[in-house]
């Protein structure tokens, strides 16, 4: 792997949460990268640490969480070593976010136009804010943008709120867009609209996107490379065809088998036994071993390290063969 080509390069990132007893490891040793203009997915179930990873990219993890180790390099600069002012300038201007719940993520007492303009003023001072905001709203497909400028967030539907969020994120033409479950809170038909919009804008603006989701269907639709997370670890990563087609990790395979298919018949689905573990009480060794059909005594004792299968396919399993 050649470091310099990547826009974002995360290496051995660890995020901990302080609790009353001992710190809980939410993300442990996650490594992945995003190239310019590329769409990378971070897939996992609830509580696997994918959202925390996304927030850690610009050190947005709030108390009681903190980044405990590893490195994050964005465009060659070390994010973890930046001073707060530099970090602030990077947020929004170079790395922008879209969150899962547009309804709560927008400030309820400010007008939509103001919220978009604020992002503009912060990073691109001296431009005609109003025209720019209108053109942004046009761009994200909000009908009647002139009128919507003075609307409050609660006056918009969920889909429109998410469009506003996208407009805020794109205001400063970031190089990386982090989309944290951007469609989960929306209805199926709206999901498709938003996703389509994101993909289109990404193409137009040439930015990279880190898509965080639990939905393998979304991943299959838009991502070029995929990172599968389980219990704070990236257990498998690689090109989307590899991960979804020839997955090596038993968890990825299980997940693929467990997703109901539109085209699937009535053949019995096979789920993964057991439940997603609690980050505070992870099993010893490989955290997946209690649910793994291929578990061996070794798995219980030793957390596997990442194995390179091919150039674009890595897995973290003792027995991936």
């Amino acid at each position, binding site marked *: 792997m050649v470091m310099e080509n990547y826009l974002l390069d995360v290496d051995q990132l660890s995020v901990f949460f302080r609790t009353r007893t001992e710190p809980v490891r939410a993300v442990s040793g996650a490594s992945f990268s995003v190239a310019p203009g590329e769409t990378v997915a971070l897939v996992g179930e609830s509580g696997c640490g994918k959202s925390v990873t996304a927030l850690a990219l610009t050190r947005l993890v709030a108390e009681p969480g903190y980044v405990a180790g590893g490195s994050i390099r964005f465009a060659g600069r070390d994010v973890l070593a930046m001073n707060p002012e530099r970090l602030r300038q990077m947020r929004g201007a170079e790395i922008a976010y879209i969150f899962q719940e547009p309804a709560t993520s927008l400030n309820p007492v400010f007008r939509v136009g103001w919220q978009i303009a604020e992002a503009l003023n912060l990073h691109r001072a001296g431009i005609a804010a109003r025209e720019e905001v209108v053109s942004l709203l046009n761009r994200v497909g909000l009908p009647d943008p002139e009128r919507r400028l003075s609307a409050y967030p609660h006056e918009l539907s969920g889909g429109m709120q998410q469009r506003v969020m996208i407009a805020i994120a794109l205001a400063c033409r970031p190089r990386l867009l982090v989309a944290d479950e951007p469609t989960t809170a929306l209805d199926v038909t*709206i999901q498709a609209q938003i996703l389509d919009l994101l993909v289109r804008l990404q193409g137009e603006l040439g930015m990279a996107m880190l898509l965080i989701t639990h939905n393998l269907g979304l991943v*299959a639709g838009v991502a070029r490379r995929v990172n599968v997370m389980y219990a704070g670890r990236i257990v498998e990563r690689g090109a989307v065809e590899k991960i*979804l087609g020839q997955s090596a990790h038993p968890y990825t395979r299980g997940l693929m088998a467990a997703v109901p298919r*539109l085209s699937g018949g009535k053949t019995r689905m096979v789920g993964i036994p057991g*439940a997603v573990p609690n980050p505070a009480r992870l099993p010893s060794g490989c955290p997946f071993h209690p649910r793994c059909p291929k578990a061996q005594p070794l798995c219980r004792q030793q957390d596997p390290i990442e194995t390179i299968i091919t150039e674009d396919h890595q897995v973290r399993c003792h027995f991936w063969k």
Partner: protein
Amino acid sequence: MSLLEINNLHVRFSAGHGHEVRAVNGVSLAVERGESVGLVGESGCGKSTLGNAILRLVRVQAGAIWFEDKNVLTLTHRDLFHYRRRSQMIFQDPYGSLNPRLSVGAAIEECLAVHRLGDRAERKRRVRDLLQTVGLDPDYAARYPHEFSGGQRQRVGIARALALNPVFVVADEPVSALDVSVQAQILNLMKDLQQARGLAYLFVAHDLAVVRYMCDRILVMYAGAIVEAAEVDALFACPAHPYTQALLSAVPDVEKELRARAAGARREIVEGEVPTVTSAVAGCSFHPRCPYARDLCRTQLPDEREVGPGHTSRCHFRSNHANIEVSHAPEEIINT
């Protein structure tokens, strides 16, 4: 006669300020014994309200619900009690639907106690049996809901629904709150129980893939009305209503996406917002979003038409407008 038959059901809520939400607007459907029927739609389309109405958990304004040849809506208090033994419900949120202050054993036993089934010892035994049936350790009866994972809680919810030996179960989004890896376990359990006990399900869901896996027949709901009803294979093979088509196209399915990606195709996207049910739309409720809408659609509410054997659709235009082929019924476009 079917096990359950609903005729022209209307459920309306007051939304304050004289506004009214027509959550269910003239729905008719039938469920046979041992059959599982899927009810699919987006949020706010009235599918959960319909499920609740069947169990008389909400007030119904008009229409009739026939269950085993009795009108559920006119049941006396006593008969209603008996009815609840015959039809039960599995709820969406496994975290909220169990009372956190009751042990799961007590929660299940309470159903038996309220319906005066068996003495204490017998009820205890029955609770253990039920837990075993849903794949939980019978000794878990003394534990409280917070000690279980989401999947286990949903198993408890199923055990509770089955405690009274119902013949009909409304399952309201039973797996949508669960992690993907756990969903399959619950779906399989429900399937096994259906086979073992001859249950009929009304399976309310927004996930088409799940419904396809679980159900024999599917009803698609939009804005309080059923817009399409068909056998599961017929629906997926040739969706007749534009909304169904849009829905199918919008679902991000792994295989479909991969195929589309390989082919470089783009998905069909239906524009517009999911309607709030307060705003009464003249004509077909889908017309503001329908890519094929014509003048007729804006003025006249379409009737239910048969587009194939056991396949009905509420659209003025019988054929399908997109590139999916219709295998039956000659093309017949009504122009105005």
